[in-house]
């Protein structure tokens, strides 16, 4: 009886000592902590390896794939944009050449019309000038004739006034010779 009491007291005292000291060094709780630690680690390991890690790994891989694809698509679009710009520039250059050609043609056409009109105008002017020349010549001829007639009449009048018998034919011949003279 007495020994039992003493044993219980000693055990109690030891327990108290454990409480009073560092709980970390109370070895009576070690099996409990180790058991629950192992359970916890196993549970976390299974949660991670069965569910979480494959899922996150898949998401990361998918994201990487998506980004790679998107970057490739962006690169392709960029190439297309460059090609489109090239085509645009080509078209612009072609249009410019075309426009220059049209301008040249138009200029040639206008020049041709202009030349034709100028030639026609020159011809008309030349015709008018020739006609005027003819008229002037006619007028001059008319004047000479009139002068001849007046000179013959005057000569006949003078001859008869001076008392001579004016032979019309010889007077005319003399006046004509004089006018030629």
């Amino acid at each position: 009886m007495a020994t039992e009491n003493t044993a219980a007291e000693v055990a109690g005292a030891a327990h108290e000592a454990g409480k009073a000291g560092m709980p970390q060094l109370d070895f009576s709780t070690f099996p409990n902590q180790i058991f629950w630690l192992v359970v916890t680690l196993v549970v976390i390991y299974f949660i991670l390896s069965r569910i979480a890690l494959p899922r996150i790994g898949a998401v990361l891989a998918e994201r990487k794939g998506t980004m790679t694809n998107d970057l490739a698509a962006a690169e392709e679009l960029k190439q297309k944009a460059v090609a489109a710009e090239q085509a645009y520039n080509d078209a612009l250059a072609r249009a410019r050449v075309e426009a220059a050609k049209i301008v040249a043609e138009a200029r040639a056409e206008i020049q041709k019309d202009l030349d034709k009109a100028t030639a026609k105008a020159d011809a008309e002017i030349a015709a008018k000038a020739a006609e005027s020349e003819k008229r002037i010549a006619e007028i001059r001829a008319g004047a000479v004739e009139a002068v001849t007639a007046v000179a013959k009449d005057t000569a006949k009048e003078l001859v008869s006034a001076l008392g001579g018998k004016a032979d019309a034919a010889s007077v005319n011949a003399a006046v004509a010779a004089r006018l030629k003279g």
Partner: protein
Amino acid sequence: MAGEAHSEGGLAFHPLQQFEIHPLFGEGPIQWYTPTNVTLWMALAILCVIALFVIGTRGRAVIPTRVQSVAELAYGFVYKMVEDVTGHDGVKYFPYIFTVFLFILFSNFLGLIPGSFTTTSHIAVTAILGFGVFIAVTLLGFILHGAHFLGLFWMKDAPLALRPIIAVIELISYFVRPVSHSIRLAGNIMAGHAVMKVFAAFAPMILISTIGVVVTPVSVLAITAIYGLEVLVAFIQAYVFTILTCVYLKDALHPGH
């Protein structure tokens, strides 16, 4: 203990009380299977893992939600650490290392909740983690390399005369690894929490004595500062434990330095 507390002028100093383990239901001796506060806080760590890594990633979104991106960040952080330290052939041990990392990380952070219990402050827990890593890595080294694993201790580039001496030193340091590995974690966490508790005990001084006008604000400020430090320590210790695990694993995978 109680007498000492009274001699301090009515202040109650029980900085180690927070580390006590007691059954969750009723009183009585703690058997190995008894649900205790250890069980509770470890279960909460599991719940945190589930919340972050199972519920948080259930969308499997290519454009992640905030929770999912945190989970991805943690995954990428540890994955890169394992890959960088151990090389490409160490990646298949990533789930084990990630398990240890998350357990320590969540235990440390859950322990920062006022009134909580910190499982990683117990040497029994960290010693199992530390020695678990040690035994696993040593076995792995012998399984992968057989007797060549002992080349880890035999420096081929040292002078021949020095090699036995170096081998002894290397051997001792190798066996000290699990001890330092586990005590570093438990010691850091326990010390921080105990110091916080000591300052907390000084905080009600203003109710007892006029000197409390000075002591109380100082201790409140100190608790705040140390709490901030402990948040840092909670992460850093999880990181340190994990990266050392990777380093030890690297030795087992590539013992030829």
